[in-house]
């Protein structure tokens, strides 16, 4: 069993001794090919002088480190605003789509469908250029409109996925519609949808880099400033090599958090329906007389 694929698939059997030998050969050949490719790229990097001291010198300067840190801070600031506002907008639009009043439902459906169909960048440019808003608010507004609409759909599916009986029981207890939604449905919906919500926040975090295109001074913008500096011999590749791991690391951390929450939920007994013992014959209620 040690050599089988991680999950059973329909594609092949657990390999026997001969197949295992064959797979070993394939493995060695493909590893060699991959290493050759990596080696070629490294050779190209050296060949085009990407590792000269001149191009890496800027990262030693305090001013440049501060510039990068400020950029990172601005990126995180835009993300924080966008995350909070999209969650709020998502909640409002979800409630709108679930409303019993038809016009409210129509308007929210229209808004959700429109903002989901538009490229985020077009919305950001529109707000930035046509409405002449500052870069940060324009970026945050664009991200909020898009991610808020997507989150609205997530919340809506979450609320609809809550068992019908929950709602009926809550109404039977005499709760109003608002109470039913806020105290019974929404908490369960958020819990069920938490991994999806966090994954959507990863999208928002990734899209903060669009701010670069409207000259918001975020992380990528700081990188561009360093990269296009002639004094350091235009260190584009070194800048990409420094910036990408940080961006990718941030997003991976958040994605990993989403999968961690999902895995934890699958194990947690709280998210599963609480089993109630059926009433025994002759008794009115479980455990009753």
């Amino acid at each position, binding site marked *: 069993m040690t050599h089988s694929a991680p999950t059973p698939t*329909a594609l092949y059997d657990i390999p026997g001794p001969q197949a295992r030998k064959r797979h070993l050969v394939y493995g060695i050949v493909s590893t060699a090919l991959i290493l050759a490719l990596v080696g070629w790229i490294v050779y190209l990097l050296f060949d085009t002088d990407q590792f000269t001291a001149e191009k890496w010198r800027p990262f030693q300067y305090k001013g440049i480190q501060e510039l990068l840190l400020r950029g990172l801070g601005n990126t995180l600031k835009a993300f924080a605003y966008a995350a909070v506002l999209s969650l709020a907008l998502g909640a409002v639009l979800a409630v709108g789509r679930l409303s019993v009043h038809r016009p409210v439902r129509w308007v929210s459906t229209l808004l959700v469908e429109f903002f989901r169909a538009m490229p985020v*960048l077009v919305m950001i440019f529109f707000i930035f250029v046509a409405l002449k808003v500052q870069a940060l608010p324009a970026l945050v507004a664009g991200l909020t409109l898009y991610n808020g609409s997507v989150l609205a759909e997530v919340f809506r599916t979450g609320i609809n996925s809550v068992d019908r009986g929950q709602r009926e029981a809550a109404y039977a207890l005499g709760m109003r519609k608002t109470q039913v939604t806020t105290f019974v449905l929404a908490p369960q919906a958020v819990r069920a949808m938490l991994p999806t919500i966090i994954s959507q926040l990863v999208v928002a975090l990734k899209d903060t880099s669009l701010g670069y295109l409207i000259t918001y001074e975020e992380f990528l913008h700081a990188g561009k400033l360093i990269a296009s500096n002639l004094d350091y011999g235009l260190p584009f590749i070194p800048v990409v090599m420094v910036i990408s791991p940080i961006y990718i690391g941030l997003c991976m951390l958040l994605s990993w958090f989403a999968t961690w929450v999902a895995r934890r939920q699958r194990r947690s007994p709280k998210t599963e329906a609480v089993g109630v013992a059926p009433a025994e014959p002759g008794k009115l209620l479980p455990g009753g007389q």
Partner: protein
Amino acid sequence: MDVLTDNFSLYGEGFLGTVELTVYSSALALALGFVMASFRVAPVGSLRVLGTVWVTVLRNTPLTLLFFAVLLGLPRFGLVLPFQLFAVLALGCYTSAFICEVLRSGINTVPTGQGEAARTLGMSFGQTLGNVVLPQAFRSVIPPIGSTLIALAKNSAIAGAFSVTELLGTYRTLNELGYSIIWTFIWIAVGYLIITLTISALFHVMEKRWGVAR
């Protein structure tokens, strides 16, 4: 209103640019995604690692950063290609990670028993894959592939901001010519809506014809 009629050729050029970018990048994304998906389900460990690294890295890279690295970085590397080709490369590679995951989950929806039955009938690996597993996987992945390609079409707007001829890029010229910005953007929005709605309609037809009835 006259923004469109006065500048029909400019809009047309931008619109065609977006369509071309979408079509070429989709082709690249589907091909690369298929290769990476087959790597990820392969029995060979090193290929599985390669597929996993490809997907994990690209899914967590901001697309703007990827465009920055490819369009501005690669020329420094000694590689000089037309800008549009660079844009296709960036968009296609980025989307291929998402296509890969969609295809892989599609393969996983095929019950293990199907493959076992095929092997029991004496089918080879190629026959099992081509005649039994992939046709079923294909049917279940039509809708998610459709939404991935719609996302690709929308993401192509970023290429316009990096001065590739593209629909969003037309706003710059029209803005300089002094046309009403609001109307300029309305027609850009309409252009994108036409493209995304066409893709969505296309996949709707495909799903009706081949999709799994659930």
